[in-house]
């Protein structure tokens, strides 16, 4: 029995296919194990990090205003515009302005569309109805950008009205305006008025409408100055240059 059983078991051999399949399975396994999984993981982690930074970066660049548009009637509102020409911030600079900013949703609109919505909005009507003067001032991230933006605004329907004036300004002026607690459209008008009437303080004009300030300037200035200012209202960027000449 001993030998019979031994012989019988001896006849049992692992099939070649079985050996081949096992070798195949194991070499696939070792290849996978040797092929640095760690490297793969690092690559995945790195890709995820890059993706995160990219999306964070683009999110940051979207929500960061690089240019600003100040709209002054009596309510003073400033629109923060990002590098993609979208409005990402709306700030009111006085009580009316804050109210106005809260009543219209301008976020994520293109700046010229946003102005159209703002000027056409229900909340704006009482101010523009009574012959209110709308002063739009653009501060571009660069001089060229500012010019481009004010040109675009000037070409829009709402800017054709004689009661709308459009200027561009530079960053320093804007910062000075903010220090004085005014939006820069108003600050600009204030500086102009103070040249003519040095006794006027920032506090005095806080409640004035742009129309009132402009009328006061016109009152105080002589004919030639008025002419220059008129050019400023209609001529946009030229306005800024005129003022510098003063």
């Amino acid at each position: 029995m001993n030998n019979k059983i031994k012989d019988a078991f001896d006849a049992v051999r692992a099939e070649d296919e079985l050996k081949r399949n096992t070798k195949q399975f194991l070499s696939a396994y070792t290849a996978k194990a040797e092929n640095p999984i760690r490297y793969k993981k690092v690559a995945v982690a790195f890709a995820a990090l890059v993706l995160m930074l990219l999306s964070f970066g683009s999110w940051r660049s979207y929500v960061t205003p690089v240019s600003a548009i100040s709209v002054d009637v009596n309510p003073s509102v400033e629109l923060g515009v990002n590098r993609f020409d979208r409005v990402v911030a709306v700030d009111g600079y006085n009580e009316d302005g804050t109210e106005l900013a809260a009543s219209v949703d301008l976020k994520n609109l293109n700046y010229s569309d946003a102005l159209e919505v703002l000027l056409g909005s229900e909340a704006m009507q009482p101010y523009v109805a009574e012959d209110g003067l709308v002063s739009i001032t653009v501060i571009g991230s660069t001089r060229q950008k500012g010019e481009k933006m004010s040109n675009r605004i000037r070409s829009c329907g709402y800017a054709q009205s004689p009661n709308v004036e459009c200027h561009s300004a530079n960053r320093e002026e804007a910062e000075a305006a903010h220090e004085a607690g005014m939006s820069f459209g108003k600050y600009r008008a204030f500086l102009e008025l103070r040249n003519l009437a040095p006794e006027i303080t920032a506090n005095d004009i806080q409640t004035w409408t742009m129309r009132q300030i402009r009328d006061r300037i016109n009152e105080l200035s002589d004919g030639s100055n008025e002419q220059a200012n008129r050019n400023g209202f209609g001529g946009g960027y030229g306005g800024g240059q005129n003022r510098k000449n003063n």
Partner: protein
Amino acid sequence: MRSEADVNRAINLYANTVRRICMVYLKNYADTEDIFQTVFLKYILSSTVFESDEHEKAWFIRVTINACKDFLKSFFRKNTVSLDEAIPISAAVTEDHREVLEAVLALPAKYREVIYLHYYEGYSAVEIGKILKKNVNTVYTLLNRAKGQLREVLGGDYLEQ
């Protein structure tokens, strides 16, 4: 982890042993393939240093038996019925051998394993006790009963040889 050359050497040396143990425990070919993968994967991953070829062979026998038993215990195995319940005796086996193998495989599992280890691998009852973690006397009893049953099936003349 062992190298691929190491693994190929082990497969060439021990594939037949593993195959025979699989035949003793399992009933179909697909399961055998699973056990092959499990056993040789364990070999790749194991850091055991073998003192001799005997030691290495015993390791393979031990690991294969455990793998088979684990497999039989597994939930999947207990709760499903294989479509292919044929006893996997390779077609290459001659009629004479087939008769013996069928007789051995017809025994209960506890007899099959001792018959295989004793008559084929040539282990003593003490060694079998160590491999199967059984008392030596139990192994003697199992061997005697297994022999008795085989004698009944195959006839007395097998015993005399």
